[in-house]
């Protein structure tokens, strides 16, 4: 929904499958409970889903980001078998995680406004992928606020 995003990085076919599975679970939840799934619950559903395949996992490393019922931000990252990490600053996944952890640690400040957050995130991301051979080819940034989502495409090195 428009206050909950999940980033699925990894094997493309598993990205698609997990995306479809999540939609199925989320849909069923909303029909039965007659309310939207909160990010924390969604993160747990995803974590369970991945651990069910503990000995033949989906090759994805997801990130969940969203606003809960009180408009408080929620972040979580997971490995491919569903081990979650909940933070209140940043989560990273992909091939360039080393770079990204470095960039985020340096550039991050708590309580940034949406505009500054966008700038910080974009700089961290672009700098990280530029130095990683397996990452790149552009980026999309979504900034989620209680009033809506703003999505912007970044122009990066196409190599």
């Amino acid at each position, binding site marked *: 929904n428009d206050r909950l995003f999940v980033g699925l990085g990894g094997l493309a076919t598993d990205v698609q499958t997990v995306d479809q599975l999540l939609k199925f679970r989320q849909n069923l939840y909303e*029909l039965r409970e*007659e309310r939207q799934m909160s990010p924390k619950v969604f993160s747990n559903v995803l974590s369970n889903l991945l651990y069910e395949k503990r000995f033949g996992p989906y090759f994805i490393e997801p990130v969940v980001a969203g606003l809960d019922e009180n408009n408080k931000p929620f972040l979580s990252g997971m490995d491919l078998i569903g081990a979650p990490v909940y933070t209140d600053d940043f989560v990273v996944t992909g091939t360039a995680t080393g770079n990204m952890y470095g960039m985020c640690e340096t550039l991050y400040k708590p309580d940034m406004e949406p505009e500054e957050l966008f700038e910080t995130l974009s700089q961290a991301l672009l700098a990280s992928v530029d130095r990683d051979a397996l990452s790149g080819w552009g980026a999309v940034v979504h900034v989620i606020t209680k009033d809506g989502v703003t999505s912007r495409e970044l122009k990066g090195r196409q190599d």
Partner: protein
Amino acid sequence: FFSPTPLLSLTMARRYDASTTTFSPEGRLHQVEYAIEAINNAGTCVGILASDGIVMASEKRVTSGLLAPSKTSEKTYKLCDHAACTVAGLTADANILIDQARLRAGRYTYQYQEAIPVEQLVEHVCNYKQAYTQYGGLRPFGVAFLFAGYDSHHGFQLYQSDPSGNYSGWKATVIGANNQAGKSLLKTEYGAKPKSDDDDDAPEEMETEEDPAEEEIRVPDVTEALRLAVKVLSKTMDGTVPSPEKMELFTMTLAEDGEGCAHHILTEEESKKVVDDVEAEAASAGDA
């Protein structure tokens, strides 16, 4: 389709009605017929197919003033983005079937990445119900449904299903208490041209002149269908005056942004307005 009358052969029936899976000598399944009887004591549901959507009106039976007001709905349930249903009969039985329907719709979408065609969803639920009339020595579900749905193949559709697992598509129908009265009212009123003040006599002349087979049924729009549904419901309900608190009015139309369907259970205010319109119409027709 026959109307079940167990009274005729009550003594004979007694030997064959204990098990669902046994036919009676007359070739009937008595348990199924008893299940249908159970529904005839339940809150009425009216469904009407309109040109731009579907209307379902249900009678809410409030058994006690102490009952905590239910959060959302007690008669109407959303099955998926493009289908919903109303229930007449045992709520507990209905909950199982509704969950089945939701799962089926979700799994279909997961497998085909497409919306399940409405008839397929209905057939799935009905096949599930049918299994309880043939296997296992279990009793049938005491529920009848009105399914409202939209798909790209056949547009808006209205289906009725009963405990036997039988289903059929309708332009307008009634289930639950007093459904015969409701159905006969629908027969005359559905597709009838709206009366204007000065031609009260004219429509009847016109109808006898035209060949009934060629006469076109004019499909009402959702607003008109809502009024008709309220009219039918007030006829089948016990009280003389239709009251908005006892009715649950539901419409399904295409969403304004073109993506999917809009399911709308009318608020008490909106329901009141429809009821007022119907009463005003009845009053003016009475005066004319």
